[in-house]
């Protein structure tokens, strides 16, 4: 079986190489047979990698410890679900998953473009195949998933207990899906540069890919944060660790990209900027893998340090140089005739939003690589921790939130002061009122007051937008309220889905601010019967119960939670686990979540006599809303991605090369208004 995996990966590599030659030969010599042949090669490559993945999965499920990978990341007692997810627990498997996703997306892109984009698609597919070659090269020659052990161990070393968790099962595939799907817009951008077809065709053809990527990057980050929250047991969800930053940076850049492409679609501006952003997003996905896999930057999570660093760095540098070279080569053709006309315009708001997003990305990047830089320049490692990132990003986040409110309401090109007052009077009033209410309620931190006011302001702008759109439909089409709302969203899903995402962002932002500023913490060593209070809760430690299984031993503390009135609310059961195979303890956190606050109980230790428990208890207000906001962001993205007849027509128009500029009212009313 393992030989089958190796063989499949070798054939996949050959097919990837062949598809590049066939695609380029086909498009240069106008030989459609070769284009078709290249497409089949890509599909076959995908089939081959699928075989390799299945082989590894079968080996994991059958606990075939003759494979080094299986012996390293699994064991006979590992629950079946985690044997399945062990595919992406280690380096070889992660790269295999990456290659597999890339092959799937490339195959889908090949299918979508079998009749579309005949000039550019072959180049884009060649770029994607080039990326696939890098990963397949690694899998064939550098870090092989099907290497055999000389001596077959009786038992595997088991999966890291920290990874034996539901969120860890779905976080890496989500993030990787987000990472890898970003390469499709990148490849079409590169193809636009190679062929000189520099209109917005590449953006429109891959818009859904970009949103798809953003969707999974969002979920990946949220799942990762949730995993940290539930598993790491320190009461927080984000520590600005290099590994986390590596996942966050592509998200930031894709967010910027999704906004700035609207300016190009509307006004034919910012061509260089958009091409640079998608290049940056793709580069950062490689960079993310590079820093998590190379050990160049020490992370608390400190994943496998390995010799992969130089390969990733070389590939990253090669891609950056080639892409920058193309940008410079085409720079004359990329000049745009249009100009910014006014600060009071949507394009200006989007431009500033882009600058802040890229600024945050840069700050995160800088903080992440600073230890390496300082060591190279000054000979001493200087590191910056969470305070650095918080101090830089907190004010920038306020600016971003502010622009989230401004951008959608302000008109393209320019806005008159009259318009401004009409659009913003109500939201500003809501924001100011929230600030005053907060101050009256006893909030004193200026940051919190500003953040909540701005959040309310943005919510106000979204409300105004929905109302305006609904009223337009009601008056022009005589639709009742509910129907007007439903049609408004359905017919302009891209725009109103975007607003739903904005609301999600703001809700998550409120959760972040609340949980960062108002978290309280109590640490106590307690005997059975002892009680103590945190916030309005009284916690009483009742005692331990112990359960031993062949896979793990657990000691569970029973803690009675009483409300202010002394009545029992619930019994919480945080536990200490001890995994037999790796001989390693782990912590099982107990969380009682409400929209107001989370009660988070960690059994931090049990003393040797087995009588005393060390408890660490956090009361974190509003953190619930971070997860709720994250889900709403995902939901809004689904609305945006929903197929839309009008948009397909627009793409067809653009692809047949006659530009259109639908006006604002048509946007609001949709096809029913014509």
């Amino acid at each position, binding site marked *: 079986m393992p030989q089958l995996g190796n063989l499949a990966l070798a054939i996949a590599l050959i097919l990837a190489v062949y598809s590049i030659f066939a695609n380029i030969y086909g498009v240069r010599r106008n030989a459609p047979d070769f284009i078709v042949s290249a497409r089949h090669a890509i599909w076959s490559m995908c089939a081959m990698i699928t075989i390799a993945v299945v082989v590894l999965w079968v080996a994991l499920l059958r606990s075939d410890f003759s494979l080094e990978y299986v012996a*390293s*990341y699994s064991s006979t007692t590992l629950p079946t679900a985690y044997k399945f997810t062990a595919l992406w*627990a*280690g380096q070889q498997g992660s790269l295999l998953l990456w290659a597999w996703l890339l092959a799937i997306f490339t195959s889908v892109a090949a299918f979508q473009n079998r009749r579309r984009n005949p000039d550019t698609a072959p180049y884009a597919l060649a770029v994607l195949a080039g990326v696939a070659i890098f990963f397949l090269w690694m899998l064939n020659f550098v870090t092989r998933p099907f290497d055999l052990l000389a001596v077959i*161990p009786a038992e595997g*070393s*088991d999966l*890291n207990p*920290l*990874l034996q968790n539901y969120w860890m099962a779905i976080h890496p595939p989500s993030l990787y899906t987000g990472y890898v799907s970003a390469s499709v817009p990148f490849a079409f951008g590169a193809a636009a540069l190679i062929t000189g077809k520099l209109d917005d065709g590449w953006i429109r053809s891959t818009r859904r890919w970009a949103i798809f990527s953003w969707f999974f990057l969002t979920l990946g980050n949220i799942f990762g944060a949730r995993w940290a929250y539930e598993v790491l047991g320190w009461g927080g969800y984000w520590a600005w660790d290099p590994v986390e930053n590596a996942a966050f940076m592509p998200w930031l850049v894709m967010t910027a990209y999704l906004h700035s492409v609207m300016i190009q679609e509307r006004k034919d*501006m910012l061509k*260089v900027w958009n091409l640079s952003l998608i290049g940056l997003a793709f580069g950062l996905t490689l960079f993310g893998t590079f820093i998590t896999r190379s*050990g160049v930057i*020490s992370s*608390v*999570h*400190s*994943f*496998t*340090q390995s010799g992969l660093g130089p390969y990733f760095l070389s590939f990253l540098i090669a891609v950056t140089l080639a892409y920058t070279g193309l940008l410079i080569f085409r720079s004359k053709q990329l*000049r*745009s005739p*249009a*100009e*910014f006309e006014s*600060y009071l315009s949507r394009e*200006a708001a989007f*431009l*500033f939003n882009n*600058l*802040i997003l890229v*600024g945050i990305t*840069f*700050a995160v990047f*800088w903080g992440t690589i600073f230890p390496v830089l300082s060591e190279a320049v000054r*000979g*001493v*490692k*200087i*590191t*910056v*921790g969470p*305070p*650095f990132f918080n*101090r*830089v990003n907190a*004010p*920038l986040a306020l600016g971003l939130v502010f622009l989230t409110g401004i951008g959608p309401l302000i008109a393209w090109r320019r806005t008159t002061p009259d318009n401004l007052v009409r659009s913003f009077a109500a939201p500003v009033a809501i924001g100011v009122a929230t600030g005053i209410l907060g101050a009256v309620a006893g909030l004193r931190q200026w940051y919190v007051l500003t953040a909540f006011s701005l959040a309310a302001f943005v919510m106000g702008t979204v409300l105004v937008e929905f109302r305006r759109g609904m009223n337009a439909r009601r008056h022009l089409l005589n639709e009742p309220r509910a129907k007007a709302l439903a049609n408004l969203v359905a017919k302009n899903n891209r725009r109103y889905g975007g607003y739903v995402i904005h609301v999600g962002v703001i809700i998550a932002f409120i959760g972040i601010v609340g949980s960062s500023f108002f978290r309280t913490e109590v*640490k106590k*060593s307690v005997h059975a019967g002892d009680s103590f209070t945190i916030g309005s809760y009284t916690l009483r430690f009742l005692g331990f119960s112990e359960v031993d299984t062949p896979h793990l031993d657990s000691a569970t503390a029973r803690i009675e939670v009483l409300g202010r009135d002394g009545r029992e609310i619930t019994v919480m059961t945080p536990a200490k686990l001890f995994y037999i195979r*790796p*001989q*390693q*303890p782990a*912590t099982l956190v107990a969380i009682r979540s409400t929209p107001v606050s989370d009660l988070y109980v960690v059994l*931090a*230790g049990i*003393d040797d006599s087995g009588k*005393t428990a*060390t408890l660490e208890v956090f009361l974190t207000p509003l953190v619930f809303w971070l997860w709720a906001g994250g889900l709403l962001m995902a939901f809004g993205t689904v609305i945006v991605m929903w197929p839309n007849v009008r948009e397909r027509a627009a793409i067809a128009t653009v692809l047949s090369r006659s530009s259109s500029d639908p006006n604002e009212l048509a946007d609001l009313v949709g096809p029913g208004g014509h």
Partner: protein
Amino acid sequence: MNIRPRFFIGAGLIILAIGYLIGNAMRTTSEYYLTVNEVAARQSELGGEALRVAGRVKPGTVNWEPNTLTLKFEIVPIPELDTGAAPIKPVVATEPVSTEPVSFSVVAAGEPKPDMFAPGRDVIVEGKLGAGGVITATQVMTSCASKYKPKQAQ
């Protein structure tokens, strides 16, 4: 490119503000990230500075008092062979190299003992170096590998 000059002013202001935020935060939050050997070599200049020290927990020195949540141990250098990294540039020794291996006492109070903490494990200690070479830690982090090597018979 074709953005009017006054947009350069607006964009420039934003970029300056971001640059200022980064610079300011760097000044106030950066800390040294050193190995135990490096701390030993620079001990005189590091008093009171915020530090992150990477070292290994010396077996037989761990003292954990759950009632006061106080963790005491000594850290020693991580042998270079184990890290697999390129050898660190030698620190120019001004005094004869002592044969006694370098070690520092670490006192961490008010934090539970991390799960992965154990004698012989590699840790990152965040805190300040006080008089007498005692590091008062605000945080002790254990580095966890995603892959386990079976324990070798000693």
